[in-house]
């Protein structure tokens, strides 16, 4: 029963406890969460869980199909695909989390300032965001990488940049409506300063939306990172990255489908899991759907 997950049924029902209780009712989101936790654990403990060195070639078994030794087969250099996918998870998850964190924090700060102060500050910041928003995400990312040069760090920055406008729009919207709430007015009457007002009274109210969007954004970011690697702007060749693995396997489509199939599946499952988690979080955080 879901009761085991719920906070102890004390008299005090904290907002966090309420949220967890509702989240536990979302079976699909729970499965997605479990999958994501598994992925993270596998990525963190990659050296201990992978049967082979992801970079070590084995010229005796090139493009082998799945077998007892190589569960997901081997690629053109005889490297174990299963091991490479797990190591690749490290790269993908790092890129996802870091880029969303960077973009999210920048977006939150911009959104808060924009919504709270309004006026010309709002005008300038939002026009800036509109400019970023006008580019299709992947084009913007390619542009930024082209400017900074390829490499995984730059992929993180570029994806962060195209996450900023959406986060800032989201936070600005909540800030505008929360600014009008009676409890924020009450806090102002008491003499609470601007920074405290923003961080203590407004930001927590905007966070549910941010959390939901961040989890959805993680999926998109991982996908974009894979796309950038696929077109050769992301991870450099020896490193195992899902998008790069797809690119490598492209030449062998029809000969050894598993070389592209399994990294593709990894991307698909990971993005799906983050999206399902996002849906679950939204349902659990939205009081109207109770």
């Amino acid at each position, binding site marked *: 029963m879901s009761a085991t997950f719920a906070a102890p049924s004390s008299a*005090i029902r904290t907002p966090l406890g309420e949220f967890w209780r509702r989240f536990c009712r979302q079976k699909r989101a729970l499965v997605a969460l479990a999958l994501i936790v598994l992925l993270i654990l596998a990525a963190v403990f990659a050296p201990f869980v992978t049967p082979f060195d992801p970079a070590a070639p084995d010229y005796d078994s090139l493009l082998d199909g799945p077998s007892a030794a190589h569960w997901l087969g081997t690629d053109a250099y005889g490297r174990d695909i299963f091991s490479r996918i797990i190591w690749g998870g490290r790269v993908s998850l790092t890129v996802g989390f870091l880029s969303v964190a960077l973009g999210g924090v920048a977006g939150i700060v911009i959104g808060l300032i924009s919504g709270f102060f309004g006026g010309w500050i709002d005008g300038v910041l939002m026009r800036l965001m509109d400019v970023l928003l006008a580019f299709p995400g992947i084009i913007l990312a390619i542009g930024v990488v082209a400017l900074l040069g390829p490499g995984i760090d730059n992929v993180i920055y570029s994806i962060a940049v195209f996450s900023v406008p959406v986060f800032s729009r989201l936070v600005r919207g909540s800030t505008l409506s929360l600014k009008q709430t*009676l*409890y924020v007015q*009450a*806090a102002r009457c008491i*003499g609470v300063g601007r920074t405290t007002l923003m961080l203590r009274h407004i930001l927590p109210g905007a966070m549910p939306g941010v959390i939901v969007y961040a989890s959805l954004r993680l999926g998109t970011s991982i996908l974009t990172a894979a796309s950038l690697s696929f077109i050769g702007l992301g991870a450099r060749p020896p490193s195992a990255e899902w998008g790069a693995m797809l690119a490598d396997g492209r030449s062998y489509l029809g000969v050894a489908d598993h070389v592209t199939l399994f990294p593709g599946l990894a991307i698909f499952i990971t993005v799906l899991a983050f999206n399902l988690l996002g849906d679950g979080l939204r349902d659990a955080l939205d009081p109207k759907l109770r």
Partner: protein
Amino acid sequence: MTVTPNSGLLDVTGLRVAFPGEDGPVTVIHELDLSVAPGETLALVGESGSGKSVTALAVTRLLDFAGGRITAGMVGFTDATGVTLDLTTAPGEVMRRLRGPEIAMVFQEPMTSLNPVLRVGEQIAEAVMLHQGLGQAAAMVEARRLLDRVRIADSARQLRRFPFELSGGMRQRVMIAIALSCRPRLLIADEPTTALDVTVQAQVLRLLRTLQAETGMGMIFITHDMGVVAELADRVAVMRLGRKVEEGSVEQIFAAPQHPYTRTLLAAVPVLGSLSGETLPRAFDNEGVHAQPQDTVVAKGPPVIEIVGLTTRFDVRRNFRLRARVHAVEHVSLSVRPGETLALVGESGCGKSTTGRSIIRLEQPSAGTILLDGEDVTTLDHEREARLRREVQFVFQDPFASLNPRLTVGFSIAEPMLTHRLARGAEAERRVLHLLREVGLTAEYAQRYPHEMSGGQRQRVCIARALASKPRLIIADEAVAALDVSIRAQVVNLLMGLQQRLGLAMLFISHDMAVVERVSHRVAVMYLGQIVEIGPRRAVFTAPAHAYTERLLSAVPVPDPARRNRSMVLDDTEVPSPLRPIDQPPILAPLVQVGPDHFVARHSVGGHY
């Protein structure tokens, strides 16, 4: 089959209603019996959560759409042809046929029960076409006739207006017009006047009474206001926690209530005129304890707050050009001494809240001076702002919205102390517990979140929070208006007790004349942004010198059915809008003294007065 009693209209027997809960269904109405005869008005009275509205939903079976279920009992309804139906089992098709021509409803919120994008005439005509089978043109003629019937002046023009162009009272009259469009035999009115101002409420109540006399319909009137009950009802059913605790004729209930709950309910109702023989305010008597007069005013020294010529205007711009101005507050001057309560009364839109909000600078005043303890705080630098925010505290009307739902009550109370660096750590904690005790709560509440508390408890927390910075003045903006009657009396007593102990000055903003009579030393009456009368409470209430004050006082419902048919000096005029073209500022003139400390406006304010 048992023989069911038949009153000729509605007979509810053994009704039980349940809603799905987390641990199975929760029964909210228990074994309820009610009956309404044609031409009779049954008042359903009780506090929030007593099941009054759910009962109405069950009778109309709108309950089906609200998620509830009737689990036992019968709702017998005799229709126009004399056939008695059991509404609990009637199929949806039958219910849809009944709703409108036979049973009509009027809800509390006239703002939300009209469709904002359809003209008023279209909405009335829609109901007429649906149930009377008239054509478009004929329905419009009928709609106009209905508007005339609910005493809406200039009905031909009003038909073409949108709901947002009408005032609350007009909208409620439109709702009544729609409800009556099919000549229902039973009208269920769920708190139809609660959201309205007293003078408008008096108009709507009188209208309902006349219409009932004309059509002979039965009426269920749901309310928490005993004053309204006394004005309107033939019989009264008192509900509590989903059960009917007492039922009787209105005279019986008011003269000799049997159930202790009915007695508490009646005792808590503030009666206008109950202090007409006393100069000082006095708290409500509580459990036999006779309250002492509130002799707390310190006459010597400067007033805590003094505002001179305060003016707050809002510019209305279209295409960047100034088109008109809302004259929310016009040249208001007043002062409050330590230990004194000045009540600011008036109807919605008169500028009383804006006055309070301008003092605390939630709105920016356009002109005037504000003196705090003799020091000018009209323009705020960092230091003056801190001082103003420490010494003047605001209590809002809605205790549900004025506390941050994500912070514990204890933290909310401590916040002013932390903000102004008055206390921290263990010292702040100790003060929080002390303040909780001061407002009649226990220490354990400090750990709770606002949603775990009732409205009355939350308002106590808001008061404790207001006290935390040791203020000299508290501005209470309709602070008790959202509370149930019995809770309202407790909170009023709490505020008065605090004034006695701490010598607080209070600016009590309210539309409730009976409560104002209880709490205030002096009263200022506002109309269209100006003070039209200001003076000692006793003088203003017993000998009002301004026609508007008189109108306000006469519109207050009297909780005594014996005095129901007193002649009412009511007019159906609407309060004019404070929105004026820029080249037409309102007329201003100094107030004229008519008695000791008693001043009144003798110039024309807004056309009517």
